[in-house]
């Protein structure tokens, strides 16, 4: 379960236009320059208080992660000026800490090994399906699309255990279908994440793919391009920004996930979130480890998030402003 989901609920056209207009203005306001001051002095104070309240928790952990071990355990981070001292030791220790099967450094690599395929695979498959839903005419299209949409709200808790049994035994309803995959590396997590990501990815990408003007598609068809070429030569380049924003969400989703990892990534393929959660349980008071560990895990999503912010905001509004 990730922290954020794009807005994907169907709302009426009027509000869609309104949101789209606002999103454009937000883009301008955020990345352009605005001149107006805050509405009133009280509003300024309130905004500052909220901003401060929201920043303090992360800030405290960040400062603490660089403080010497004995200082963290005995004094608060706000006394940094009285108990001056900085160190990188916590990070060095945290990277080597872990359980009997893997260290945090390995878990960090695992997180990449899980996240990158689990982002590329579902988005490619979803893009294929999104194209079919948007540009191919077939009977039952609406019903199928609504079914896919409804699936995204179904809690993944409903699917976890039977899927685990399928991987372990290869049976569906007791009928043997495939040989058990067993716990061969990351395969289970990749497949599980792909399956769980599809409904949302199809819905969001469909909104973008169907936005392409039909004249463009028609022109390509007249020129003799088949669906394969249209997909590869037109849809793919034209929806690249959209794909990027959906990919960012999927990346953050998988990187930050704990539930799927707990069930499908055991032993030495566990991602960093799982190891961190475990350490919080076992060594909950070893703050020198936890603060540094938390920031090792946070570093990647924060970099992705800050550098690709524009796509992120656009993606967040995707479901409601497009389609």
């Amino acid at each position, binding site marked *: 379960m990730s922290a954020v989901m794009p807005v994907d609920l169907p709302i009426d056209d009027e509000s869609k236009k309104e949101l789209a207009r606002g999103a454009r203005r937000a883009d301008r306001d955020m*990345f352009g320059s605005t001149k107006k001051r805050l509405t009133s002095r009280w509003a300024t104070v309130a905004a500052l208080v909220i901003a401060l309240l929201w920043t303090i928790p992360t800030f405290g952990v960040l400062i603490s992660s660089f403080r010497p071990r004995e200082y963290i355990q005995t004094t608060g981070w706000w006394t940094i000026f009285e108990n001056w001292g900085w160190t990188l030791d916590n990070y060095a220790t945290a990277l080597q800490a872990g359980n009997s099967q893997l260290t945090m450094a390995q878990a960090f690599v695992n997180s990449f090994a899980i996240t990158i395929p689990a982002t590329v695979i579902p988005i490619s498959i979803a893009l294929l399906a999104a194209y079919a839903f948007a540009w191919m005419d077939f009977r039952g299209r609406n019903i199928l699309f*609504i079914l896919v949409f409804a699936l995204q709200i179904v809690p993944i*808790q409903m699917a*976890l255990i039977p899927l685990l049994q399928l991987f372990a035994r290869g049976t569906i309803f007791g009928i043997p279908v*495939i040989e058990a995959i067993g716990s061969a590396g990351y395969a289970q997590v990749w497949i599980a994440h792909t399956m769980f990501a599809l409904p949302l990815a199809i819905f969001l990408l469909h909104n973008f793919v169907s936005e392409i003007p039909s004249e463009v598609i028609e022109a390509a068809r007249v020129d003799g391009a088949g669906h394969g070429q249209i997909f590869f030569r037109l849809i793919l380049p034209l929806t690249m920004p959209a794909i990027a924003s959906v990919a960012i969400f999927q990346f953050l989703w998988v990187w930050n996930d704990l539930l799927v990892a707990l069930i499908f990534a055991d032993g030495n393929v566990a991602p960093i979130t799982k190891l961190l959660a475990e350490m919080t349980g076992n060594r909950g008071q070893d703050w020198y480890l936890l603060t540094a560990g938390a920031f090792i895990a946070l570093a990647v999503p924060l970099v992705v998030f800050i550098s690709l912010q524009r796509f992120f905001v656009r993606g967040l509004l995707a479901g409601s402003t497009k389609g």
Partner: protein
Amino acid sequence: MSDFLKWVSTLNPWLEILVIVGVFLLVVALILFFVEIAPRSGRTYTIVRLAACVAFPALLLWFLQSYQWAIIAAGVLGLLFFFLDRRAKGGAGSLFQLFAFLTPAALLLLVGLIIPTIQTVIQSFMNSRGTTFVGFDNFAWIFSQPQNLRVIINTIVWVLIAPIVSTIAGLAYAYFIDKTRGERYYKILVFLPMAISFVGASIIWRFMYTARPADAEQIGFLNQVIVWLGGQPYNFLAVEPWNTIFLIVVLIWIQTGFAMVILSAAIKGVPTEQLEAAELDGTNGWQKFINVVVPGIRPALIVVLTTISIASLKVFDIVRTMTAGANNTSVIANEMYTQFRSFEAGRSAAFAVILFLLVMPIVIYNAIQLKKQREVR
């Protein structure tokens, strides 16, 4: 497939990423290639199509190391499909194209979500080992144990508090900073928590909540504030029933940024004429906000509330990492996992089904909305 996967898993993780992504993209390219040549007429193309129809499903199952009967069945189905495709309304190859685009997703959804959902529903009526039918026993057990009722009440508390508070905070913040200098930086500060995992956020907040004995120096910021104000250190995560509230704070902290981004866009979308008209009428800031802005962004508010409600219903990571459900803080999703860990498959499934029933109205409502929209077009 397990041989291939076993071989892959012996590689260096970075190489593994390359191999898997490469192989996968190759398969997609192959699908697109067949789609492109599918509608062409001529004997060669027909033969290629026939070969693809039979070979694709059979090879797939062979690759998955399926049983012989299944591989043969898949091949026969492929053959059937080939003839269906030849007589398709859109001409030979049209069904082939459609299936090539849709089948990967459809198969994965079927195997990964639809069938497991049905299995979980069945499982919830079975005993812990899934061997005998026990009727509603699992549900009766859930609703008769006081600690389980507590779990359900906790979940309801989550859903009642988290969406409302984060929406109000997000709305207020979005309105306060609207069109100000430095709006961008204000926004980043509040929506930064969105990038943080629930696990990371839980560690951050556990650190905020840490309590030390009254005579020692505090290392948790909130307890330091209490001590500064002359109070006694308070164990935030241990004292019922307030500990649930302090867990909810973490979700609010994360979701406010989400609410803020959406509502900020909605506020900017409110027509300027309406705002100017309100100003001409001499309304003050508060009246303008309540009478013009809020009605103007009502749909966005509903979207934000629903989305956060769904997130709070399914909340798992925060509870798992912060307390693991101790001191009566458990919620349905956490209890579902706990029961699974203690090999109570039936009870675990029953919890999942309750969660499913709780989101059901939202699913149905939204599906109906979507249907209406698509019919209009």
